[in-house]
């Protein structure tokens, strides 16, 4: 099992604050806390906390390139304890390592900014705020690293000693859901309200209203599965792997028979009878000709939002938003189904 360990300048013995600007380095073998892990650390990667924070676009690709070059089975980061900058670097590197298929474990205080940086991708072993927690932290991190490196199944947060990553994991309750439902609603009537699932954590606030629509360039984006008739690019009816773009030049409205929905998550019969009710091109063209909007961005962005994992959908969103940004679009009508 090939173990790679990440440390900041201080724990790598390069110096304290004065050395925080240190650029990434690769060192053979274990260094400092790495010797206390009880693992056969093949390589230690080091970066100054300030350097990582101020030059992340430089430091992160370099560290990841080394990690992939070393073909690491597992990455261990820190422990960074209560340190904010060090924790952030550990969490960020660990997250990106996991996204490249290399399991990773960090050690840090639960309130470290490294915990959100790890984004539930990497495992975080909670530690003390201070360095005095080293002896306690190292064996717990090493135990998890051994399992991760061996691709063993990782159990519950409590049992394995890591912070919950926000995954919704299935377990078997003692009672069927229906019995729990009856008990919960009777308790609710008696004044005790409990829930087995919380509100979604992320609620995206809407942007402020547009002051002067007559000046804006407007785009149309949809997850309704709207495609040209016959679905020439085979947009998936569910679990879409991609989004598509179609030109709108010369299209005054989505004619029935010329456009249709490929979506498999709702009854498309009414939508196909008038695809403009999925994406209001007819109405937007009217506003355009009346001069009530500055203009229409002549590309439709479309996908199917049906059983799409949130991470995939968020990726689509970021990619489409970048296109819109590049095209100087200032407003979007985003229709969902």
């Amino acid at each position: 099992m090939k173990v790679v360990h990440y440390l900041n300048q201080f724990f790598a013995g390069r110096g304290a604050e004065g050395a925080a600007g240190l650029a990434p380095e690769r060192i053979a073998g274990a260094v400092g806390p790495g010797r206390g892990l009880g693992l056969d650390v093949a390589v230690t990667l080091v970066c100054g906390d300030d350097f990582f924070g101020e030059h992340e676009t430089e430091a992160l690709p370099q560290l990841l390139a080394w990690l992939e070059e070393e073909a690491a089975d597992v990455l261990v980061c820190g422990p960074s304890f209560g340190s904010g900058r060090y924790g952030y670097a550990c969490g960020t590197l660990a997250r990106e390592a996991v996204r490249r298929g290399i399991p990773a474990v960090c050690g840090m205080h639960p309130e470290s900014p490294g915990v959100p940086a790890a984004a539930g991708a990497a495992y975080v072993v909670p530690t003390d705020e201070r360095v005095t927690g080293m002896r306690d932290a190292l064996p717990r991190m090493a135990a998890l690293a051994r399992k991760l490196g061996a691709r063993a199944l990782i159990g519950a947060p409590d049992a394995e000693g890591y912070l919950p990553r926000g995954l919704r994991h299935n377990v078997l309750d003692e009672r069927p859901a229906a019995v729990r439902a009856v008990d919960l609603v009777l308790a609710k009537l008696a004044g005790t309200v409990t829930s087995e699932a919380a509100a979604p954590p992320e609620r995206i606030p809407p942007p402020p209203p547009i002051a002067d629509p007559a000046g804006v360039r407007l785009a149309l984006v949809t997850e309704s599965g709207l495609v040209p008739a016959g679905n020439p690019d085979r947009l998936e009816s569910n679990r879409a792997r991609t989004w598509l773009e179609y030109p709108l030049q010369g299209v005054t409205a989505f004619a029935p028979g010329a456009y249709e929905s490929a979506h498999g998550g709702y009854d498309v019969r009414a939508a196909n009878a008038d695809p403009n009710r999925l994406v209001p091109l007819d109405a937007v063209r009217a506003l355009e000709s009346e001069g009530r909007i500055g203009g229409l961005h002549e590309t439709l962005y479309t996908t199917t939002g049906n059983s799409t994992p949130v991470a995939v959908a968020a990726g689509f969103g970021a990619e489409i938003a970048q296109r819109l940004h590049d095209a100087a679009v200032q407003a979007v009508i985003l229709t969902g189904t």
Partner: protein
Amino acid sequence: MPSVGHTSTGEDLDVATFVVRDVMEGPETRWDHGRLLIDLSAVEVLSAGSSPGVLRVQAEIVRPGQPVRLVNVLDAVDPVVKKNAPQTTFPGALGELAVAGAGVSNRLDGVAVVSLADFRATHDVEALACSPDGEGVIDMAGPGAYLSPWSATVNLALTFECDPDASLADADRSIRAITLRAARDLAAATVEAMPVAVESFALHPADDSLPAVCVILQVAAEGPLSDTFFYGRSVEGILPTLIDPREVLDGALTSGQYDWAGSRNPTAFYQRSVLLRELLDRHGRDLRFAGVILALGYLPSAREKERSALLAARLAKRIGAEAAVLTTFQTGNSHTDTVLTAQACARLGVATVVLFAETDAGLTDWAPETDCVVSTGNEEELVPEWRPARVLGGEMTYSGRSAMVAGRLPVAEYLGAVSQMGDMRLRAVTW
């Protein structure tokens, strides 16, 4: 005029249970003191009559623990027969019309009839407006076996071969009729036998001081292959309707809906509903069971969703319910119907609990009024890979993967896994 065959004057539903200890193929379908013999050829000839759309049906017995994967699963049905009027079993859907939910029903415990059909093999399903989404899997062994109730029953698996020249709507109608018929015929072997237990489902007047609880049972109809039937007719367009829970347990509701298997309500979930049985059992003890309101989900517009939510809540209030258990039919879109219904109930002072399957990201929809949620599990979680020795129901899964080497399947593809009628014990917790 349909004839009315059921003449029982008894108010209660008596369910006589016959526990099946062994199932074997035999020269005739017969009940022999806990042993069920099945004449498979008699089942197979059911397609020979007037069954438009179906070329043939192959019947096979599959057992728990066998290295067998069933794919393209459509429905699962508990074998049941009306003891004193077999011709009214599954009234409207199979048998003559009669009010369900009264009299004696014989049911077999431990055996199910499961229908399978690979529509892709005979039809260009992607070109059709009606095509099922997602996969329908039952693994008789392996790491996914705990997810489906039908991994633990002996199944009479009926694999249908559709006629490529007929419509899928026709084929589906025949498949449903043959499946219900087979289920009735198995149970009919017990009409002269003595059951091991008889459960009586009564709804006598209960103490007014007990809290009144109703169920708003969400169903949906989006046309062929995506339909639910009440006394044999599609529920499309119904207003929220008050029904007796015993009608549901006694075959008034049947399924013709083949999207995502994990959150599907197969016919058997109506027949054996844990939720309805629980409320009937507790009626007069710690609650009053105020009734079942059948209401549509998956409605196609915001206005229709709000209208149905409003009318369902109004009906709950009118029957005196102080609380309502809200079930959900399938996921995504329909969660909004449930949330709107919870909000409409809250406005009328009816407390609600909702049953929701979750995704990797948690709940699909939520409002402050859905403050009491029962999690029926994360349908996106992947199950460890398992390679069966044999596959029934087609060589390919619906999503086009080899059924033998399908990789890690999501929970959403296992029949009944995240039942939002509350039949299962699965639940998601934060890891």
